[in-house]
């Protein structure tokens, strides 16, 4: 488990890690991220491939065998990946809380 957070995650990395809380293959990740962002994010296939490769190298995700007869590689988040997401959520939560507080004080 990492002692410290690696710093703010990119949107691509954050959403890929979220998507992989269920094992998915590349196309599944693209579809999932597009759906939970209400169509705002259409992950480019090249961008996604780069993210999957880097995250697997870092050990934040791992490849798992696909269902029987499937050749496609599936990925799933690791324990380390999960703790990274949790740390990032804490950071994002702080951003949102501070943002809302300042905006609310301003509109008083």
């Amino acid at each position, binding site marked *: 488990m990492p002692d410290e957070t690696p710093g703010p995650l990119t949107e691509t990395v954050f959403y890929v890690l979220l998507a992989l809380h269920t094992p998915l293959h590349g*196309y599944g990740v693209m579809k999932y991220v597009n759906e939970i962002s209400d169509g705002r994010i259409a992950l*480019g296939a090249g961008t996604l*491939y780069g993210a999957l490769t880097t995250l697997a190298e870092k050990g934040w995700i791992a490849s798992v065998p696909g269902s029987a007869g499937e050749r496609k590689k599936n990925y799933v988040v690791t324990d380390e990946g999960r703790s990274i997401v949790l740390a990032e959520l804490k950071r994002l939560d702080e951003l949102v809380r501070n943002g809302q507080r300042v905006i609310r004080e301003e509109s008083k």
Partner: protein
Amino acid sequence: MSAKTIHKLYWDFEKEERWLNDMSAQGLNLVHYSWGTYTFETGPAGEWIYRLELLPGDVRDPKSQKYLEFMSEVGVQAVATYMRWVYFRRPAVDGPFEVFSDLDSRVAHYQRILTMFASITAALVPLTVVNVVNMTRSGSSLAFVLPLFAVYLALVATLATQTIRVWWRVRELREQKRVCE
């Protein structure tokens, strides 16, 4: 399905991409490319969206092959490859198609193109000088050397222009990256 061949040379991959998508909008779909020769097949208008990418390595490298395999798994076809360039397409019904969706990966792609143009330009300059000097020394007539020199010069100028254009694009994106992701 009839075929059509067009000879054309592009330095700017984004212009090339636009042209291929204009062709596709008219129902002419790229199916093959080699040495400035584009082969099209006729099909329903606007069936495909085309995108070009310069790979980090040779197309036949295992790394590139793994990447192309991934692309086909997510519904992206590689219709043609040429040196390190790949011509991708995806059905338009699958929605807007981009290979790169964030600043980081777009910068990395332009950076690859910049390195390629810069190294060709850098290699061509001494080649031009050596060739012209050698020919002048060996007593070739100016009537022969001058036009050749002009051709070399035009080539260097074109490549240098492309290098600067892509360098500018990288700079713009990096500038944007200082405040955005």
